[in-house]
């Protein structure tokens, strides 16, 4: 049995963000999570709002319109200013983080347009510095370089589609260089190799004399995991031109950099992460949760907490589940799930890109991000919900995934700190220090 000011369930971007804020605000924080969350899959570009459904150029303005038009959307909880504050905070995390001077670029005011691995120019607000030169709003000449051994990135296909965007000229090159000359190496394997100057030299050697004067170079997002800033700058310097990363299929190297950064900050602030723990329920006293129950392997453990942040993600990460009788549940605390059609009603439509009735399902919350039941009354007073668990959005379509998780996680931490400051009783011992 352990005791903490706050237990955070979930180690994705939302959970870690809330946890770091709480810990840096002086709370004792324990993060319990089944796995590492979407950071290891997602490129972790902070997409605030990409489509509404037209491509969005200025997310700050578009957010205001969205919140007006869709009062059930989770961005209503944070608003444009809340998103901007979260982004500033997030960028700050890298300043003295373990990968410094690796940094993020961009703001909530403008979307960049960065190529995806199939060559679509996708709107993104805040991205790793190593990706920023891929912003092709003004067009440009690009040489897309990939590796035959990396099956999760196809440079010629990418270039072919990219070259059809306005003002963009693109061509693809596939190199036969790989770590230890293996035939099948994933993104993480390449990233480790790129940390090594001699591997970079091999790549640079293969590109010698093959690049046009005005061409920038696109590479898969594998330019280093231990020291990405150094790897990227070295390539830019020695190739003498802008170089940028394009996200690959999972595993995601840029996402792992975010995870490492936030986890290290949490550690420095005295917080702790335990992985491979499934939260299966809670013990309550009235409207408050006093402890969460967790299962580690075959053992059960109870963790007492004054406050709980629920950031378990959506259906993709097991935070929400639908059973074969078409009943949905929230897996950690058993909160009500809103937006799920009744068993006889249609959940999905036959067209893949159709609007699917179950698309916005999730945990409904009040203005303070407390979970509410079907009647709109809070289910618990001391639980705050953040991230992809929240009802009301289809972030994979809007391109708002990491933006929503970052902003709502940031606010969840802030709300809890404010509350604990307001009634500092015995429970708040250790806070504010």
């Amino acid at each position, binding site marked *: 049995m352990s005791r903490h000011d706050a237990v955070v369930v979930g180690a994705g971007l939302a959970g870690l963000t809330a946890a770091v804020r709480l810990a840096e605000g002086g709370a004792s924080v324990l993060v319990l999570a089944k796995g590492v969350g979407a950071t290891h899959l997602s490129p972790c570009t902070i997409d605030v709002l990409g489509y509404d459904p037209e491509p969005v150029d200025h997310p700050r303005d578009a957010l205001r319109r969205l919140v007006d038009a869709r009062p059930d959307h989770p961005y209503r909880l944070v608003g444009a200013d809340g998103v901007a504050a979260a982004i500033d905070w997030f960028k700050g995390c890298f300043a003295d983080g373990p990968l410094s001077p690796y940094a993020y670029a961009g703001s909530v005011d403008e979307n960049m347009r960065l190529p995806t691995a199939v060559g679509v120019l996708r709107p993104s607000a805040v991205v790793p510095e190593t990706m920023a030169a891929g912003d092709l709003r003004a067009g440009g000449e690009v040489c897309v370089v990939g590796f035959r051994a990396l099956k999760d990135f*196809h440079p010629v296909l990418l270039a072919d589609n990219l070259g059809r965007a306005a003002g963009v000229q693109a061509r693809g090159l596939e190199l036969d260089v790989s770590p230890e000359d293996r035939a099948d190496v994933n993104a993480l394997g390449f990233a480790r190799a790129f940390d090594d100057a001699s591997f970079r030299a091999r790549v640079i050697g293969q590109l010698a004399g093959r690049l046009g004067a005005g061409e920038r170079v696109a590479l898969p997002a594998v330019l280093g995991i231990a020291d990405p800033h150094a790897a990227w700058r070295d390539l830019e310097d020695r190739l003498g031109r802008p170089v940028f990363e394009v*996200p690959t*299929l999972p595993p995601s190297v840029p996402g792992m950099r975010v995870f490492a950064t936030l986890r290290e900050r949490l550690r420095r602030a005295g917080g702790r992460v335990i992985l491979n723990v499934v939260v299966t329920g809670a013990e309550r006293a009235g409207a408050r949760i006093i402890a969460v129950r967790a299962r580690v392997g075959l053992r059960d453990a109870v963790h007492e907490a004054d406050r709980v942040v629920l950031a378990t993600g959506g*259906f993709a990460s097991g935070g929400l589940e639908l059973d074969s009788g078409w009943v949905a549940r929230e897996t950690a605390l058993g909160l009500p799930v809103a937006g799920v059609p009744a068993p006889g009603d249609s*959940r999905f439509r036959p067209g893949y890109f159709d609007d699917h009735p179950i698309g916005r399902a999730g945990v409904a919350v009040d203005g303070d991000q407390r979970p509410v039941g079907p009647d709109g009354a809070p289910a618990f007073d001391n639980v705050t919900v953040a991230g992809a668990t929240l009802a009301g959005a289809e972030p994979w379509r809007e391109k708002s*995934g990491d933006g929503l998780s970052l902003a709502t996680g940031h606010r969840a931490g802030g709300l809890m700190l404010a509350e604990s400051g307001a009634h500092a009783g015995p429970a708040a011992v250790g806070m504010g220090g």
Partner: protein
Amino acid sequence: MARLRAEVLVIGGGATGAGVAWDAALRGFDVVLVDRADLAIGTSGRFHGLLHSGGRYVVKDVVAARECVAENAILRRVIPQCIEDTGGLFVTFEDNDPGYGDRFLAGCHTAGLPVEEIPVAEALRMEPVVNPAIQRAFIVPDAAIDVWKTVWSLADGAVAHGARVLTYHKVIGLHTEHDAVTGARLRNELTGEELDIDAGFTINASGAWAAQIVRMAGIEGIGVIPGKGIMIGMNHRLVNTVLNRCAMPADGDILVPIRTISAIGTTDIRAADADEIPVTQAEVDQMLAEGERLVPGLRRARALRVWSGVRPLFQDEKAGGAEVDTRDVSRTHAVVDHRKRDGIAALLTMSGGKLTTLRLMAQDIVDAMCEQLGTDRPCRTAEVRPPRNEDGRYYQVGSRLAKREARLLDEQLICECELVGRERLEETMRARGTINLDDIRRQLRLGMGPCQGGFCIYRATGILHGVGRLSGAQASTSLLAFLQERWKGVWPILYGDQLRQARLDDWIFQGLLDVEHLPETGTGAPAALLEEEPIPA
């Protein structure tokens, strides 16, 4: 307009048509086999996967049962690599007709079907997930049969004997002269071009579409009522033996182990149109409930995909044409001789039948053709093995894994679920000359494992783009068409882990790749795929 000539035109590239082409080519006929789409994309590609022992029919239709007994034994001999020798188990339940078990045993003896009753405890030891409430258990020689391997083996065998196979060629008209069919007009479904084929004889093996074909020769009074059946593939080999409920045939009463998965099926519902057979949520609910009775806990297994096919119920007005439950119709086949029925020579139609008897069906219809042509050429399909079956061994689960392990380090694995390596993928793309990912899916089972293509679809698109020298727009169209095809098979069964997977795939395709905004794709129609030359074979 281009013109082709052949002795025999076979319409329909399902199991029946491929069997007919193989049979006729072996007898020395010059054959052209045509299908409006890829091979085995009609009912054959949407069946349940069972090589019947005959057990299902012994009580109700002893003729059908006897045919199965004989054909099961022959197919095991000639196409062993397409068959996994799982064996079959028939189990009775308390709520069944109590006399059925005895009638089943008696029927097996009448039909000559080898059967053995085993103690319930032994059946439960063999298949521990089976409902412990079973009352009796019988062992029969059911097996699992891979239709794609079968059809491609037969078609390649026919080609090796001089046949030509035209996929994506739809018959849009039949030519007739002096009360005989003399050929057909075809439309290339990829390019829109038309071509004429002169044929000495035409065999209509178009299954549920057979009535549409005969109408092109002015023949009336034949109707086909499609009876829709659905099957759900579960992500485990829940059983290693084909599991049958020992009772009169009903819904959801067979579970077939197919490679690494198992399929529960089926239903039988009248459909208005053989080309419009969407699966409804109510059907899925019913199938899961039935499956749960056979194997308690089945609902907790992951449902991988659902598919549906149509049983063609032939109605011949000249033969009475009474309406019947499609499952009550005899499952045996019949050759419709249009010279006798309609006074139109050189045209035969295959009606009814099942996959298990495809060889016999082919033999019967080619015999009837020989008779009409006045030649005597004996059938050889009971002795000759078509390609890739020569070693005489059954398929065994895990053989792909064994082949892979031998070369784990020197090749790139493109589909982790179904263990498809890069070389094999590139080879298939070249050999098939296709730029359609869905054709490759059927051939290699690419994207049919638990991840439903989340990873391999992007990889395969990239590779196809290179191998096939496709334009970006063509590659995009193929990618989007594949995503839609996959979606069709999963959306009705998205719950549990498969919903989780689908959402992860949404994140990959929509979040990470943003495929919805690919520039300038076609509408998904295959015609858009062929702006350029196809890949040289």
